[in-house]
């Protein structure tokens, strides 16, 4: 079975969760998995297909989350409109950041550090002003109803999240079968080589980071609608950035279903570690770490590689 087939089966199986799972706990668990899968996919667009490893994807997640929260709470803007504005603005921030960074040819570790720095700056700034909720964070007033993008039934949130993840996989598949994707992958593989063939590397990477930022911001918006609360540590903290890159890397960098598989495996392992160790505080993290090390030792190119011989962007090529 190829990675793509396994991913599709997993995706289809996840659609059944709200109709099968009755427990509120497990429904929330799988909802969170889907959110992180889409966040990982957003990282994967830039990091996996574009080869630009961001260490500060929290910047974009937080941009979406705080953008929509501020617009709703401080300016009374409708949740849908606020979400759309927040996503658009974050995409623009991503493009601007990308232009500055790529224009001056920052790559590799330097790119990672710059993104981390921007996320940290955003975290500190957001925590410093009353307008942005200060140290406490922002509470979106409870007002259930489809008009406010707030649903009593968590299953509706779940189905929306599932649709996002499916959309994310389609975006990745589009990248593997389009001119833009081919150019992005070419830039990842060899920037000079791509430029010699008429590819504008700066433009290509700026578009990729804008798309990636918009996707991450969408998760942020969704997060706020689901929990009705966000603070600077959750939204802009390094934890969110690590979550974004970890699910993509564990699942399989630069593969369409890698982030989904990574999110499922990672959170299943995390939950398993908790169940096994019971109440001993911190012990679950030790076990989780050991499981991660084992995973990286035996499947260094991601869990997707457990299914196919050749996990890579290969339209037209025969899948193993």
């Amino acid at each position, binding site marked *: 079975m190829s990675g793509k087939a396994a991913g599709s089966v997993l995706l289809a199986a996840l659609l059944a969760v709200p109709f099968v799972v009755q427990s509120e706990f497990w429904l929330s668990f799988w909802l969170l998995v889907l959110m992180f899968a889409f966040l990982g996919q957003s990282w994967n667009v830039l990091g996996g297909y574009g080869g630009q490893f961001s260490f500060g994807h929290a910047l974009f997640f937080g941009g979406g989350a705080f953008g929509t929260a501020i617009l709703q709470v401080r300016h009374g803007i409708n949740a849908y409109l606020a979400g759309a504005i927040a996503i658009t603005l974050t995409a623009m921030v991503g493009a601007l950041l990308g232009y500055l960074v790529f224009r001056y040819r920052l790559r590799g570790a330097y790119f990672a550090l710059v993104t981390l720095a921007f996320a940290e700056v955003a975290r500190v700034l957001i925590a410093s002003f009353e307008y942005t909720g200060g140290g406490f964070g922002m509470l979106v007033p409870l007002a259930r109803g489809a008009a406010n993008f707030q649903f009593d039934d968590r299953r509706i949130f779940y189905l929306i999240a599932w649709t996002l993840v499916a959309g994310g996989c389609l975006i990745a598949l589009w990248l593997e079968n389009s*001119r833009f994707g081919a150019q992005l992958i070419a830039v990842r593989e060899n920037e000079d080589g791509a430029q*010699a*063939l008429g590819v504008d590397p700066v433009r290509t990477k700026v578009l990729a980071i804008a798309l990636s930022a918009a996707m991450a911001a969408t998760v942020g918006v969704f997060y706020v609608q689901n929990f009705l609360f966000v603070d600077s540590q959750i939204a802009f903290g390094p934890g969110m950035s690590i979550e974004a890159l970890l699910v993509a890397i564990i699942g399989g960098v630069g593969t369409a279903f890698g982030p989904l598989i990574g999110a499922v495996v990672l959170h299943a392992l995390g939950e398993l570690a908790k169940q096994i160790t019971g109440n001993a505080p911190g012990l679950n993290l030790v076990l989780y770490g050991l499981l991660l090390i084992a995973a990286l030792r035996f499947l260094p190119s991601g869990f997707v590689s457990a299914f196919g011989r050749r996990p890579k962007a*290969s339209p037209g090529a025969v899948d193993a």
Partner: protein
Amino acid sequence: MLEVRDLRKRFGGLSAVDGASLDVAEGEIVALIGPNGAGKTTLFASISGFVRPDAGAVRFLGADIAGVAPHLICARGLARTFQIVQPFEKLSVRENIAVGAHLHRPARREALAHAEAVACRVGLERRLDQPAASLTVAARKRLELAKALATDPKLLLLDEVMAGLNPTEVDEVVAVIRAIRADGVTVLLTEHVMQAVVSLAERVYVLANGRIIAQGTTTSVTSDAAVIEAYLGRGAAERLRSRREVRHAP
């Protein structure tokens, strides 16, 4: 088609290109030769936009392209290959060539079909689905050529596409380049393999220490005293001539 006028490029204290001028007319195959370190690669890089020249003009199809970004120069119809090949290692041969094909073909299907056609022209048709990382040196050189060719260039700059090939492979690539020219692509190439230069080029420029020291047909430049000295050292031409005279003496 291509006019280079008094091009200069310094790297610190070193003048890599020191006032070089050359012309390439449409339909020609022109060779640029010279000893190691003469500045051939820098001259190529300045023409194709990868290096910004300090002074001088590069005119391609009437427009000044000195200092223009490489991807824009490529879009105008001037494609280059690299002496150190630059494949997209993890992609298949077909996908590699398709990146070039996409320049004027937005549709994926069309680009892939064109990639296949180009692969046939350079003799890579049996390696289409192989990853570029697994190719031999000879095949990598062909891939480099194919990628550039897929952008539908009017002028092709080939930087030592035959270095490291055995004589049979050189003959094959020579035939490929002839066929490319027959299809209406003008070619400017640098080469150390004289077998290829002699059989391909109508005109030859000789570059030494960043300057063009001779130009003409292959036979005329190889007997030029300045060229012999550039390759073999000062006084070499004199010694060669005297030795020849001794041999011809009764």
